[in-house]
């Protein structure tokens, strides 16, 4: 939420010095993120040991799992934005919501696509109707519906209000992804947090740590990158873009009325 507070100021009314500070901070953060991604990829793809059950494709987990939590952070930002908008009616919170949903969809797509690509050699299918997988796809569709709802309402205040409401309701789909594999015993989706990567049907022997040295470090770095750096940087950029769009919109209205 730091990002929102830093970036929000509708740049038009903001003192120039403050705007410049924000731009510098964002540039630094962006560069940090780019280096973070490269370092994370290096740790995950080069440094971490190969999983002996799955081969190299297991390394996709360094993107797959953290990107889901990144999406969750972004969707969470949308919920916070929604709640705060309904309470305060300040536009900046709606901007945060919109940015959160867009970034969240992108990260959730990364999560889905990498999952499907991982499943092809390991489960021998791009897609199965595993409950968690299904719930994940439903989550993406829910937020796609959010964008449709936004584009369907002309009155900007109604749009912000209704988007906030739907954005909060839509978060139930994120909860479902988290809860479903725990209440439904039939899932074959490995529940993984930590350096254990055997899928359940292959699980044999406690050799994971020995065979996959450096997994913990790679996972930690990639969690920081995909769960915090990437979503926050993208959110910030998206918020600035929306502020610019609002400013142009305001100037257009002004130009038309004069």
């Amino acid at each position, binding site marked *: 939420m730091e990002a929102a507070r830093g970036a929000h100021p509708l740049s038009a009314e903001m003192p120039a010095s403050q705007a410049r500070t924000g731009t510098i901070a964002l540039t630094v953060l962006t560069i940090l993120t780019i280096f973070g991604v490269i370092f994370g990829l290096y740790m995950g793809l080069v440094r971490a040991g190969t999983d002996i059950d799955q081969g190299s494709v297991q390394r996709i987990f360094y993107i797959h799992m953290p990107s889901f939590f990144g999406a969750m952070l972004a969707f969470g930002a949308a919920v916070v934005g929604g709640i705060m908008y309904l309470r305060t009616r300040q536009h900046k919170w709606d901007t945060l919501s919109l940015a959160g949903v867009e970034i969240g969809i992108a990260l959730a797509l990364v999560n889905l696509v990498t999952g499907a*690509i991982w499943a092809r050699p390991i489960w021998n299918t791009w897609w199965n109707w595993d409950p968690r997988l299904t719930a994940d796809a439903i989550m993406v569709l829910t937020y796609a519906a959010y964008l449709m709802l936004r584009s369907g309402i002309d009155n900007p205040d109604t749009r912000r209000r209704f988007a906030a409401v739907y954005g909060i309701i839509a978060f139930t789909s994120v909860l479902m992804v988290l809860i479903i594999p725990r209440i439904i015993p039939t899932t074959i989706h490995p529940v993984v947090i930590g350096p254990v990567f055997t899928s359940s049907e292959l699980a044999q*022997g406690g*050799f994971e740590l020995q065979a996959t040295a450096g997994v913990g470090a790679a996972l930690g770095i990639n969690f920081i990158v995909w769960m915090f750096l990437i979503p926050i940087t993208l959110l910030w950029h998206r918020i600035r*873009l929306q502020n610019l769009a609002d400013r142009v919109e305001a100037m257009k209205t002004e130009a038309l009325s004069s």
Partner: protein
Amino acid sequence: MSRRARLMIAAALLLAAGAAFAQEAEPQRDLVTLYSHPTERYHVFIPPGWRDDSTPQFAQIERGTTQIVARSFPAGDVEAALAQTLTEFLPNLADLTPTLLDPVTLNNGTWQIALYPPEEAGTLTGFVQRFEDVTYVLLMFSGADSRPIFLPIPADGSLSAAVEAAAGLAGFTDAAVINEGAEPVEVAGQAYTPFTLTQGALEINAFARTVGGSAFVLVHGLPDDAAIFSIVLDFFITPETTDYLYLGVAATAIVLGLLVFSMFLRARALRADLRTLQQLKADAA
């Protein structure tokens, strides 16, 4: 918004966070020694009680008078791979040629058993599997003349029929089961049923267990040698999945790239609009 509503939403969010961290604890398993070949992607579990003489080139383990060696050969046919393993492993027996039994499919691939004619020093048995153009050989030399054999369970489904068939393959063609032990024997963590067979005056012991539709039978020899079955069953090869990793990274780059590109395009269009509007404003003033 009312306080109650806020509390409710907070509760829902807490539920989400709780769910994220409520991980089922992974049960702690016994540590098993594992040999992993540095480049050829195969792995051999070493059962407890066996001495590990492996080198980076191949896996080799020993217990008493029994030795087991694992090797891999790029391409090449099964016979050539077996012959080369034998030449390096036991050069004095290098001129033996095996009879290959019908392949048996297990969880970790399709295996062929190579039975060598018995020698004075002991018996040789080979297990061969081909995977992605690589031939993997497990060769066992038993000073106690153990004959490990796995075969599909016969149609009538009885283990003793399988034991008789296995004894036949091991050279005891007229052997008949006279006793099936009630108490299973444990070897390398697995329970084997002991059998006694007779062929004329000769009494032969055997140990057997079923795995899926196959019977694992150790004809003659020491029960400890049945560990070879665990070694064969646990032998595994890391699949070559690097292409999918590249595909995944590329897909990630495309998804995020599209997002960034669309943001860039939108920003550019908006800046152009802004310039036009500022121009208009200036013109009007």
